[in-house]
């Protein structure tokens, strides 16, 4: 008996290796595909051959263009067979080959026939295949069938049509948008998945119409959505609407919050989780709003399913960053997750605890982390490192154990991103915790002794050069730095030379030793290393005398490099090697306009739902940088305000010009942004001639022409004025754009040598009081108002005459004054007959201004306004009234 048993086992071993596709070859399968052409089709055999072809494709095999075409034509023959199994494989094959446009025509009629078949499965699949391979022209022909299919009673057919609609919307939006009515009907479908697909498509059709989305959400949140997946979508759309509607904290109640909260009691886990996550991601979520969401997430923490635990702990981890107190209730459940089998869950639990924990629990947690740090993925290690960094900044007293931990993991194996995260963390700790500096620097020194990443080595060497000389015993770092000169690649050696030079420059006592080391570097095999050594030896006094380092040299070694690299590069390229040395001072510090414009254009679309809307970039910074690059503006002081651009030309004129008014204490700078919209022209020496005869108090200081303005690449020219210090000065300026036009040959893009002078009349520009006011909000208007007292108040009443509506009047006055509306008072409730609006801001000379506006309807259309201003300076009060009186 034993004998055959053993034999059977052997057989089984062989079988384990058995695969129906063993030894399969593309060539022979393509041969086999000839059966598709047989007059008497063997459906079973054909199916097998298609499976083999699909297997090959799935394994990564590719067909040449000819092979693919042959297979495709052969497969189309199989539409003759009525075998349903085979037909399914044919559909799959066509989708997999994705035929070219001229090939598609061959199958179109067969697929259209199937689309109208009585068999639901044919209809559903034919729709999916056809929509996948079709182009716009064919779509118009089948549109009618697709619209019908969307409302088909068979859910599979309806879903197929809806999904196809979602895909087609990317390529043929105008056609799909016509299906709105049918899709709307499908949203009410009884079939769960149809509802889901219909909702997804409907939202995508309407996503650019905020009002429509808001309406959709309003109607659907009242019930009638059954499918959990559709419910998840609805939650996402709802939070989008909430986000876009802005914070309506005035009433205290957030719109739709009740709906999200009710979803926490849904029977499907995915809906509960989606709702909980949506609540935690609300803008400025309050702890009262958070509580119910945290409670359900806490329940998930003790679930038997790893997916639920992971989802919950990941969300709570994010909440802990902003609302650590809200998560502390879950600490006990979190602690038990530290030993979770799933390391991802354990990591997230630990980092959450690090964020919510107190000083006493740090050491215990650190011990637990050390144990499992080695068997988690780099991504999670980075998460842990970041958590530890913020923890260290929170509890600076604990730096010793945390710094030790960081240095330990720095020694272990790890990828670049992980190591970079650790190094960054140590650098931040050194900067922010003075006590940690020496220990941290030594850890970094040890790390570069054995660091495989050139980038990190050079970063650390640079950092050592800045921080090392400031320590109590700079000499101990020299050895580490000089070792690099021996042992590393050229890039690191060069950067080590720079670091040595910095030590030499900053610490006079070390100079003789540094000189010796630098002289040795003169024999390096690499040009850059030798050049640097020579340069530094000469700058810090290579004659061997120990003198105090010049200020210039220090500036050179430690000062910031404020010349745009692009400019330096072009200057160097243009430099002609001659007797005259290259002068770096001649390089323009002016940032080329192109990068700035590009930066504005790449307004990144918020990715995913969780991403908060990206606020407008702070342009003040950009302006300040740009102005400081103009040497003449250097002594203007701090930029007080830059206005929004004011258009000086009509839209679609030859030259588009707008102006930004930059207000300084004693100066005003107009920045004219010019765009040349004529491809055949190149403008040179562009300048704006400003006539300030209607602005007596301003006197022209200088004007900075724009050297060249090619087609469609915006450039700037500036005009600066002097004005009385610290007071608002008003005036009207008329502008003429002057330039030299050169014809450009459109084929070569080269400009002719001779140009013609020309002028272009721009619109007038005014400097008004609003230009001297900064929008600055106050957190508590009433307190601020009371603290200024009625002594510094000036009240007056104004009639604003007939207005379209109260809201329009309020809007106009706010814009006129250029102040920041407070506490949401810029919104006028519909149908109200009176309104109070609170504004605040800072007037030039740093005077705080508060304004209380009371509006009332006087008669059917006439608006009356009472304006109360409080500030520390009476003249400012008068100025504000002046704005309104003259506006």
């Amino acid at each position: 008996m034993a004998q055959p048993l053993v034999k059977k086992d052997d057989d089984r071993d062989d079988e384990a290796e058995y695969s129906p596709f063993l030894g399969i070859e593309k060539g022979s399968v393509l041969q086999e595909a000839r059966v598709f052409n047989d007059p008497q089709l063997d459906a079973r055999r054909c199916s097998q051959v298609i499976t083999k072809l699909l297997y090959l494709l799935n394994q990564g095999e590719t067909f040449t263009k000819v092979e693919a075409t042959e297979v495709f034509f052969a497969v189309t023959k199989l539409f003759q067979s009525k075998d349903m199994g085979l037909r399914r494989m044919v559909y799959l094959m066509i989708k997999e080959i994705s035929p070219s446009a001229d090939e598609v025509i061959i199958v179109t009629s067969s697929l259209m026939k199937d689309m109208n078949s009585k068999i639901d499965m044919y209809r559903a699949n034919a729709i999916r295949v056809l929509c996948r391979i079709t182009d716009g022209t064919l779509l118009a022909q089948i549109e009618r069938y697709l619209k019908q299919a969307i409302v088909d009673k068979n859910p599979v057919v309806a879903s197929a049509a809806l999904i196809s609609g979602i895909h087609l919307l990317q390529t043929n939006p105008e056609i799909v948008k016509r299906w709105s009515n049918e899709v709307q009907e499908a949203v009410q479908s009884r079939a769960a998945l149809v509802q889901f697909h219909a909702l997804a498509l409907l939202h995508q059709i309407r996503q650019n119409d905020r009002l429509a989305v808001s309406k959709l959400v309003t109607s659907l949140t009242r019930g009638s959505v059954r499918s959990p997946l559709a419910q998840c979508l609805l939650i996402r759309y709802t939070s989008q609407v909430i986000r876009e509607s802005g914070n309506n904290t005035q009433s205290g109640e957030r719109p739709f919050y009740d709906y999200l909260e009710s979803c926490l009691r849904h029977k499907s886990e995915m809906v509960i989780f989606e709702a909980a996550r949506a609540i935690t991601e609300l803008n400025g979520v309050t702890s009262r709003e958070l509580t119910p969401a945290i409670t359900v997430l806490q329940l998930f923490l003790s679930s038997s399913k790893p997916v639920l635990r992971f989802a919950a702990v990941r969300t709570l981890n994010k909440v802990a960053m902003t609302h650590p107190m809200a998560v502390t209730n879950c600490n006990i459940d979190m602690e038990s997750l530290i030993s979770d089998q799933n390391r991802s869950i354990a990591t997230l639990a630990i980092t959450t605890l690090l964020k919510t924990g107190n000083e006493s629990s740090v050491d215990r947690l650190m011990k637990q982390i050390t144990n499992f740090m080695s068997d988690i993925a780099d991504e999670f290690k980075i998460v842990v490192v970041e958590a530890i960094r913020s923890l260290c900044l929170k509890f600076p007293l604990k730096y010793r154990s945390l710094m030790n931990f960081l240095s330990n993991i720095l020694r272990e194996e790890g990828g670049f991103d992980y190591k970079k995260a650790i190094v960054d963390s140590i650098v931040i700790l050194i900067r922010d915790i003075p006590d940690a500096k020496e220990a941290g620097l030594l850890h970094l020194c040890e790390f570069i002794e054995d660091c495989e990443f050139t980038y990190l080595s050079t970063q650390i060497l640079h950092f050592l050069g800045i921080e090392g000389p400031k320590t109590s015993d700079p000499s101990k770092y020299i050895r580490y730095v000089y070792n690099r000169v021996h042992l590393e690649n050229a890039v690191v050696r060069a950067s080590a030379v720079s670091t040595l030079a910095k030590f030499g420059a900053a610490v006079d006592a070390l100079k003789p030793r540094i000189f010796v080391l630098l002289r040795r570097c003169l024999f390096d095999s690499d040009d850059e290393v030798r050049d640097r050594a020579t340069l530094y030896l000469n700058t810090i006094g290579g004659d061997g005398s120990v003198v105090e380092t010049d200020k210039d040299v220090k500036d050179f070694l430690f000062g910031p490099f404020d010349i745009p690299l692009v400019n330096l590069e072009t200057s160097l390229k243009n430099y002609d090697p001659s007797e005259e040395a290259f002068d770096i001072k001649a390089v323009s510090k002016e940032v080329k306009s192109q990068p700035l414009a590009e930066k504005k254009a790449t307004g990144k679309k918020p990715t995913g739902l969780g991403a908060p809307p990206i606020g407008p970039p702070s342009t003040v910074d950009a302006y300040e940088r740009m102005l400081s690059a103009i040497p003449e503006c250097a002594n203007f002081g701090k930029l007080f305000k830059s206005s929004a651009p004011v258009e000086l030309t009509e839209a679609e004129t030859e030259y588009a010009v707008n102006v930004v008014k930059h207000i300084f204490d004693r100066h005003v700078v107009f920045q004219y942004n010019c765009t040349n919209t004529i491809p055949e022209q190149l403008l040179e020496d562009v300048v704006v001639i400003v006539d300030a005869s209607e602005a007596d108090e301003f006197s022209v200081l200088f004007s900075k022409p724009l050297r060249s303005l090619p087609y469609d690449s915006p450039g700037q020219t500036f005009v600066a004025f002097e004005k009385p210090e610290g007071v608002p000065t008003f005036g009207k300026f008329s502008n003429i754009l002057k330039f030299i036009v050169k014809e450009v040959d459109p084929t070569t893009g080269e400009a002719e040598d001779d140009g013609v002078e020309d002028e272009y009349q721009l619109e007038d520009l005014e400097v008004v009081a609003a230009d001297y006011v900064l929008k600055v909000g106050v957190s508590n208007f009433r307190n601020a108002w009371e603290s200024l007292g009625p002594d510094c108040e000036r009240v007056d009443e104004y009639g604003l005459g007939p207005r379209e509506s109260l809201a329009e009047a309020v809007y106009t006055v706010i814009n006129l004054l250029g102040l920041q509306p407070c506490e949401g008072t810029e919104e006028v409730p519909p149908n109200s007959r009176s309104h109070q609006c609170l504004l605040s801001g800072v007037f030039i000379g740093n005077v705080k201004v508060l304004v209380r506006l009371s509006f009332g309807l006087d008669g059917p259309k006439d608006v009356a306004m009472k304006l109360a201003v409080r500030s520390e300076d009476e003249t400012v009060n008068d100025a504000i009234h002046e704005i309104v009186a003259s506006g």
Partner: protein
Amino acid sequence: MASYSSCPSIKNILLLDSDGKRVAVKYFSDDWPTNSSKVAFEKFVFSKTVKTNARTEAEITLLENNIIIYKFVQDLHFFVTGGDDENEIVLASVLQGFFDAVTLLLRNNVDKREALENLDLILLCLDEIVDGGMILETNGPLIAEKVTSHSMDADSPLSEQTLTQAWATAREHLTRTLLK
């Protein structure tokens, strides 16, 4: 495929064997444009998960900013990948649907050999779960039914049905006539 913002989307579904080799895979996103990048991803995911115990409950991990939900049975490893801001539970429901459907289609013999022998069913199954990243269906039995529906359709002419089906249809006719 283009990513459809605010709609759950699946980046890929993988079915690998116990050596991390492909049985059947389907990619819906452009994150892995070439076959070699796909293979590298599969290797990476496999090596990161192979030591975990994902036999009773589906497991989850976060690798290279993707959420990966996975489950192992015999010598088969099932994976579903989604973006890192995806609802984990939605992804898990896709994996569960795939897993249930395969179990039904392979009549509980869920192993590599059976899967390869019925590769046509597995490929159809992938086709019925996700279309271009959009979730089509997550209910296992329904997916399995859609894959096999061609053998149960009563509208096709008798000549094309298998013997058992023909018999079933005949019996149905008979009962109907008898009940009249």
